[in-house]
């Protein structure tokens, strides 16, 4: 419907006929403000046809009175002076809509939170202020225009960025609900961080054993189109209609014909540290299969270290290797986007936290995961880097890169649990070893987590509540950690063979890159910001874009999986409805006034404005109705509906009265 039709459709074509209702809210308002006085006063204002006091305007009977008044007095605008629009505006909007009035012709005035509750001892002043507020509202009401929310069609496909455990869950759930999913992963295999872990808390089951089948399921699902070794380059559009450019990085191996046999890997003469999967412990070739359970189980060539010898090309029976392959781009259209791009492990090296990077035998928790993993570079044998001997005394330092004003203030939430787990695994494997955990607080919420902690204690793992002051290295490579046990106030010099830093999570570069491409807000901790911390934990302020897993902030596997499913549910609402409703309050351009100066264009953080064919164009589906652009407009050509300049001017002018 265009604007003209709406106007015909409602009774707005007529002169404003305003009905004013003053709610007593029991004694909440009525006990301070003389509501009858306010109602009587409202009756004297221009365009006000009826005014009355309600005991409780929002109650059934209150709403019936409003509807009755609309009918009897042929009202076309309603003003209710009651509590806060933050909670009650939707109720009254629905009420007037039922009585045939456009919901945006309803005006709310707050005389409870902003008046009766804050002037409880000044009844006369409060009544006078309530009259002022009602007058402001009446004059604004007369200026209001009917508005209509817009409906846009939704492409019934989803894009999931990041195929860690959260993204896999999202993709599987959406696919199972019957919609096509593009699952884009920047690495050559899906699986994410979970694939690197040894065991998982609190059950200590093997990580890849539970993840592997899920990875295969993803690959097999007919509704999921997997795009590994691919990244998002550009995203255009808005809810329901996103155009996405995906860059497929040159893998140099044909995914269709490669069998993952590994002959090429054997022949490759180049060996480099395996940074991608084994945290730099052990080596891989220039052509390599990411890990034994990789999906897809296909080789990939690292051209940055390849010496072009061609040995792999000769070795390949299926002629799958093309060393001249270049990146390719594909363009896809999707209705919704879910970001589950994960995280980076905090890197203690630049700041040499606790001697990391200086001393060989200080390692991170993630490095330990690879060292104790049965399919890791040491086949699960725990050794320390300096002399490849199995350590007898192992210490963990908690909160490295977390809960620290110098690095990150936030708690990474999973480090306590993984330290408890790794300590147990070491103790299980090497029962005569001594294991210490140095902590500030141990955080073990959720089912069986606290029990898991108890079990660690029972196994003889020693807990020292204190943050180490210094770490030094002895000639034999042992570490000496000086720490105050704050429970006994005793300062201990702890001799250790191996020191593990329980590093936390930080937002990854690729997470940040995607955030910037999508224009999702950034929270203070660097991760992506949800629309509401409680009620919309996986939504973003951008319609149709959702965030889950550690993209949104540090969390463990069960929480990540839950969020993955939550994202799928939230996103699929759009897909299944096939349409999206966009905000009724948006901006409009008056072409007669617009001078095409373009000052407004960059004001919009949602890219809703563009200068096309010498005209300013508003994409309503992208506009969130903040009105910021209208301030930049020098001519008032750009007006935010419901908060037009004339509406605000009328409201402000009527703050004041002429007095003797």
């Amino acid at each position, binding site marked *: 419907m265009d604007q003209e039709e709406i106007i015909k459709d409602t009774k707005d074509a007529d002169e404003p006929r305003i009905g004013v209702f003053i709610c007593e809210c029991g004694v909440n308002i009525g006990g301070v403000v003389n509501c009858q006085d306010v109602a009587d006063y409202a009756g004297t204002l221009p365009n006000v046809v009826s005014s009355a006091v309600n005991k409780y305007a929002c109650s059934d009977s209150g709403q019936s009175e409003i509807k009755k008044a609309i009918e009897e007095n042929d009202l076309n605008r309603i003003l209710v002076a009651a509590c806060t629009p933050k909670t009650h505006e939707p109720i009254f909007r629905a009420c007037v809509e039922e009585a045939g009035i456009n919901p945006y012709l309803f005006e709310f005035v707050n005389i409870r*939170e902003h008046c009766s509750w*804050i*002037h409880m001892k000044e009844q006369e*002043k409060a009544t006078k*202020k309530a009259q002022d507020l009602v007058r402001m509202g009446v004059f604004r009401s007369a200026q209001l225009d009917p508005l209509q929310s817009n409906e846009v069609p939704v492409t019934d496909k989803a894009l999931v960025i990041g195929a860690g455990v959260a993204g896999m869950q999202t993709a599987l759930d959406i696919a199972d609900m019957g919609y096509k999913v593009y699952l884009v992963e920047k690495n050559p295999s899906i699986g994410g961080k979970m694939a690197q872990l040894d065991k998982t808390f609190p059950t200590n089951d093997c990580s890849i054993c539970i993840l592997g089948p899920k990875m295969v399921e993803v690959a097999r699902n007919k509704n999921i189109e997997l795009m590994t070794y691919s990244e998002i380059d550009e995203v255009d559009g808005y809810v329901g209609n996103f155009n996405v450019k995906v860059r497929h990085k040159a893998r140099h191996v044909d995914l269709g014909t490669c069998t993952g046999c590994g002959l090429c890997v054997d022949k490759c003469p180049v060996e480099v540290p395996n940074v991608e999967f084994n945290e730099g412990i052990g080596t891989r070739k220039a052509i390599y299969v990411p890990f034994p359970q990789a999906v897809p189980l296909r080789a990939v060539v690292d051209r940055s270290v390849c010496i072009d010898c061609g040995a792999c090309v000769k070795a390949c029976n299926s002629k799958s290797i093309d060393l001249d392959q270049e990146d390719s781009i594909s363009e896809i259209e999707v209705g919704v986007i879910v970001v589950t791009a994960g995280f980076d492990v905090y890197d203690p090296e630049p700041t040499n936290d606790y001697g990391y990077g200086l001393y060989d035998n200080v390692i991170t928790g993630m490095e330990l995961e690879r060292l104790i993993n049965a399919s890791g570079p040491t086949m699960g044998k725990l050794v320390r880097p300096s002399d490849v001997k199995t350590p007898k005394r192992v210490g963990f330092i908690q909160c490295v890169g977390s809960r620290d004003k110098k690095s990150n203030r936030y708690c990474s939430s999973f480090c306590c649990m993984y330290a408890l787990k790794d300590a147990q695994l070491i103790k299980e494997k090497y029962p005569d070893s001594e294991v210490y955990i140095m902590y500030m607080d141990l955080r073990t919420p959720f089912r069986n987590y606290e029990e898991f902690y108890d079990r660690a204690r029972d196994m003889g793992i020693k807990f020292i509540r204190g943050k180490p002051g210094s770490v030094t290295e002895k000639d034999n490579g042992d570490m000496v950690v000086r720490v105050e046990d704050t429970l006994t106030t005793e300062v201990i010099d702890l001799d250790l063979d191996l020191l593990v830093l329980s590093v936390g999570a930080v937002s990854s570069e690729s997470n940040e890159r995607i955030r910037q491409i999508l224009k999702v*807000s950034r929270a203070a901790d660097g991760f992506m910001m949800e629309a509401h911390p409680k009620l919309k934990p996986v939504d973003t302020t951008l319609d149709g874009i959702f965030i889950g897993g550690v993209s949104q902030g540090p969390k463990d596997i069960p929480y990540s999986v839950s969020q993955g499913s939550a994202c799928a549910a939230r996103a699929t609402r759009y897909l299944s409805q096939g349409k999206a409703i966009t905000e009724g309050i948006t901006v409009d351009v008056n072409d007669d006034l617009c001078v095409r100066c373009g000052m407004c264009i960059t004001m919009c*953080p949602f890219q809703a404005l563009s200068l096309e064919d010498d005209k300013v164009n508003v994409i309503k589906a992208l506009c969130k109705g903040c009105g910021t652009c209208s301030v930049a407009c020098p001519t008032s050509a750009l007006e*935010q509906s419901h908060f037009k300049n004339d509406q*605000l001017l009328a409201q402000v002018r009527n*703050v004041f009265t002429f007095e003797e």
Partner: protein
Amino acid sequence: MADRKEWEPKIVAFCCNWCSYGGADTAGMGRFQQPASVRVVRVMCSGRIDPLHVFNAFLEGADAVLVTGCHLGDCHYVNGNYKTEVRYQFLEELMIEMGLEPERLHLSWISASEGEKFASFVNKVTTEVKKLGPSPLKPEGVN
């Protein structure tokens, strides 16, 4: 009338829907008592607070104007309040160069949970403005 004896300034407070308006609500819910000087005008984002409307408020008779919004980084519309901040700096300099007392124009970031902050802000500004008396821009006979 007893109330009339003491002059009550009129202060226009522009509040954003998501944070400072909620802050004013929270002040009410916490029953933080305030002088009856403030009239809140709700906009969706502090980025919508056009200096035009601040001028209008002063020219119509406001004794002070409060520009309020979400804390930096918390904007519901990504970065509206950063724009507010820069524009406000120009506005403030203009008003002071024009000779308006600095106590009459304020920018404050108030979250929806900061009811007490909203109330003490209103108290502080009202006390200051009472000391100054009516605004030099206030038309004769208006309050």
